[in-house]
């Protein structure tokens, strides 16, 4: 059948299935392919905390959503246009999100009595007309892959697991995408198991061929390449970009990278990546606990390494005391919190922005720390690099607030030229005629001297007890304490000197300003773009540093009649902004373990400005 190709600007697909169905892999492959084709894209993996929740249950559903587009996009899309559901439970969980009249593709072989019951269906939705407002493609994927792989003599279970490749092949056909990148990937992935390469490739082809030969699909869609800035690109997720940013900082500063950490979802991938950089001289220690992870990093910083630790909320709580030590000892340290739903163990695999207060204020005493937050997966690279630069320049711990959505989500990333990254200067103190003073400060930015063990003649002691100004000796003097508290605060305030003037998207003043931080940037920008298109006077500012705040922020805020701060928390930045600038900022606060949909923000903007 001749393909009728229809061009569309962008599509949102969600792959959903049992946690064992390989949906994360399917989504990742589709993303890679669309990236190579030149689409802009944004992804949202969504999986349960359990490694294998009971098969067929609602709790065990794993999903991967991506938006690919011919234009520059900022989010994985509000609602899927296409839902691929590999079993009844995944249909049940994800159908409510599908756009009206959207497309559903199901593996009908799994719609047995047992699995329908597990999903809580009284009758089979494929047969009872409940899906009639959607375009439903009910396909016997399990049977078709079995047919395709019959002569390979592989166990039935192995063949069955290739059904995700069938679904992927079919989607490739529907969106006019090439199979080759996936086949190439399969060959590498299963290089030692040629049988699996064959079975998966056959399933992929079978899905593609199904689209081509069955006369049920009338149209194939094409998403043109997006107009991205020229250069070399790769598809990257936030945790990987972050790891590369740290590596780049280590290379540019000429400091060996030391990472101490403890595995925790969703930050573990940073440890995994860094551990694979041994040939760059990177040292990683999987410590006995979160406290040991940061403690070892502090020790490494004392000894002159670029010291890093990464964790998520509960781990951050455990690291608080050691963070205080890094503040007092004034050592460079980068602490990454890939935030997840809290409190306590909370929602390990779901995203949230609720550790802002913890980062800014969550320590005993007056304990200021600069806090920076990436906006997109690719931005994690820049932010990690900048955090290292500031930590070294100011001799301070720096907290990076990423989150599960950024860590696991991916987008095309313009590969930076390492030569063009800002310089990171390290000035270890050497023996000179002057008596060495560990707490003597740089006059401009207040960073203290960094003299590392092994340096002749500079033997000195530091620690968690209050330091005497300049000498670093222990001091209980009241005036000295007041002075040191102020010096540490001023040093962190000075980080604002590093910031470019704040960019306002939209007009410089107007009816409403949307103020965002961290991963909410994309949804906020999309929402603001939409309402500007309707002719409304709405602007957007995105904060990269949340502590300290940009010096010019206060004067910009008062130029707007209303301020809206959407956050995946109960209003933490809102409270800071209200306290800092005495403005009546309103919050949009959703904590559902998911990133914002642009539509949710658009709706509130529209309500506020009437």
């Amino acid at each position, binding site marked *: 059948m001749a393909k009728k190709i229809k061009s569309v600007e962008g599509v949102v697909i969600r792959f959903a299935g049992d946690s064992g169905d390989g949906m994360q892999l399917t989504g990742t492959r589709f993303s890679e392919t669309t990236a190579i084709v030149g689409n802009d894209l944004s992804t949202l993996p969504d999986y349960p905390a359990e490694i294998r929740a009971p098969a067929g249950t609602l709790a065990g559903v794993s999903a991967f959503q991506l938006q690919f587009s011919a234009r520059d996009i900022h989010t994985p899309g509000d609602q899927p246009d296409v839902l691929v559901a590999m079993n009844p439970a995944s249909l049940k969980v994800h159908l409510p999100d599908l756009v009206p009249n959207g497309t559903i593709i199901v593996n009908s072989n799994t719609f047995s009595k047992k699995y329908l019951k597990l999903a809580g269906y009284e009758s089979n939705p494929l047969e009872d007309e409940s899906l009639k407002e959607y375009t439903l493609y009910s396909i016997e994927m399990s049977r078709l892959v079995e047919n395709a792989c019959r002569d390979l003599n592989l166990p039935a279970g192995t063949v069955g697991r290739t059904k995700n490749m069938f679904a992927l092949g079919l989607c490739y056909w529907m969106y006019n995408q090439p199979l080759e990148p996936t086949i190439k990937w399969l060959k590498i992935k299963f290089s030692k198991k040629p049988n699996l390469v064959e079975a998966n490739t056959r399933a992929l082809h079978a899905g593609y061929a199904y689209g081509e030969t069955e006369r049920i699909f009338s149209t194939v869609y094409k998403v043109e390449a997006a107009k991205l800035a020229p250069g070399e690109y790769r598809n990257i997720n936030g945790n990987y970009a972050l790891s590369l940013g740290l590596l780049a900082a280590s290379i540019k500063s000429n400091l060996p990278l030391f990472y101490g950490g403890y595995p925790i979802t969703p930050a573990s991938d940073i440890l995994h990546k860094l551990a694979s950089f041994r*040939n760059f001289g990177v040292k990683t220690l999987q410590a006995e606990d979160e406290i*040991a992870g940061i403690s070892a990093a502090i020790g490494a910083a004392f000894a002159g390494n670029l010291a890093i630790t990464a964790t998520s909320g509960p781990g951050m709580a455990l690291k608080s005391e050691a963070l205080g030590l890094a503040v007092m000892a004034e050592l460079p340290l980068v602490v990454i919190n890939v935030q997840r739903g809290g409190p306590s163990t909370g929602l390990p695999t779901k995203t949230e922005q609720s550790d802002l207060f913890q980062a800014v204020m969550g320590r005993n005493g007056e304990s200021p720390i600069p806090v920076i937050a990436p906006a997109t997966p690719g931005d994690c690279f820049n932010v990690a690099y900048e955090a290292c630069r500031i930590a070294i320049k100011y001799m301070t711990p720096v907290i990076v607030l990423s989150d599960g959505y950024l860590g696991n989500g991916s987008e095309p990333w313009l590969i930076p030229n390492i030569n063009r990254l800002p310089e990171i200067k390290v000035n270890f103190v050497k023996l000179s005629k002057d008596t*060495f003073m560990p707490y003597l400060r740089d006059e401009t930015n207040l960073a203290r001297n960094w003299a590392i063990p092994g340096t002749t003649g500079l033997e000195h002691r530091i620690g968690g007890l209050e330091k005497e100004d300049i000498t670093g000796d222990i001091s209980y003097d009241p005036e000295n304490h007041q002075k040191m508290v102020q010096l540490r605060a001023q040093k962190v305030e000075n980080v604002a000197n590093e910031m470019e003037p704040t960019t306002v998207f939209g007009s410089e003043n107007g009816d409403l300003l949307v103020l965002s931080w961290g991963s909410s940037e994309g949804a906020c920008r999309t929402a603001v773009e939409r309402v500007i298109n309707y002719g409304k006077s709405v602007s957007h500012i995105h904060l990269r540093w949340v502590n300290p705040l940009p010096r010019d922020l206060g004067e910009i805020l008062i130029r707007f009649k209303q301020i809206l701060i959407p956050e995946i928390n109960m209003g933490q930045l809102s409270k800071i902004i209200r306290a800092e600038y005495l403005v009546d900022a309103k919050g949009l606060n959703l904590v559902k373990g998911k990133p914002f949909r642009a539509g949710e923000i658009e709706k509130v903007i529209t309500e506020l400005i009437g």
Partner: protein
Amino acid sequence: MAKSELVKPQLLTRMDFVSDQTVRWCPGCGNYSILAQTQRKFPDFGISKENFVFVSGIGCSSRFPYYIDTYGFHTIHGRAPAIAAGVKLANPELSVWVVTGDGDALSIGGNHTIHLMRRNLDINLLMFNNRIYGLTKGQYSPTSELGKVTKSTPMGSLDRPFNPPALALGADATFVARTIDRETHHMQNMISRAYYHHGTSFLEIYQNCLIFNDGEFRFLTDKETRDDHVLILEHRKPMLFGKERNKGIHLDGNAPKVIELGDEWSKNDVLVHDERDWIIASILSHFTYRGDLPTPIGVLYAVDEPVYEDMLDDQIQKAMKFQGKGDFKKFVMSGSVWHVE
């Protein structure tokens, strides 16, 4: 403050390791002796003092780094072993020493202590054991005997005490030794043995707290009683003790007991110490808290095992050899990369 003159290592003396800070332990505290023996012994090692790092946690013992003129880091409660691990991994050339107490190392920092020992980093851990909390003014510690009456346990403590050398052996430490604050010469020897051991050295130092637990180790230090209660261990030597050196340790099956040499028992019946024998070390470690057996001091156990930082460096060298030395540009441009005009 640091002294800014260059000092040739071979010319170092005790005074080179004395810092300009006033020592603020209680007069008569056992810690003075430990500090002095360390300062006396360190010049013998022949390395310049900028290569020594002392890391401590919290407690009376943990003030130690301020008083010795090397690099030092007085950190937070219990975390010194982890911080020291970071120092050592960042720069394996340094001679890294942890100074800690029974509360710091075995209570709040128990986890870090055991994991340091099992990883076997080349770090020397000096654990001052006074069996009491001094800095918080007199609560029982994890090495206080069961039933100890303190401010926090007016009716006696309910915790069974930790046995430090047994714990160290259980954590697969490669060097376990014990000494006593008053045994100055012996302590210097043990500090030296710890220094020369490649791997984690766990040295327990019985230390008298004059204020809150005075006399805890009197039976090991008083002239009249010490010979009958202290068993000085020497590698490949029979375990003899007593004023006349006429008492020995005999193994009755697996059970150690004290024998008196004479008609019934001869030297041949006395157990011979072997630092490399974990079983003997384990038996010796369980003499602690036993009234009927003497307290062993000396090296209970010392074996060579692979050292963490050596293996890490090995991995780095291997990775560089087989993958090539990391090249960032090449690395980020490999794999699925596409070009946009």
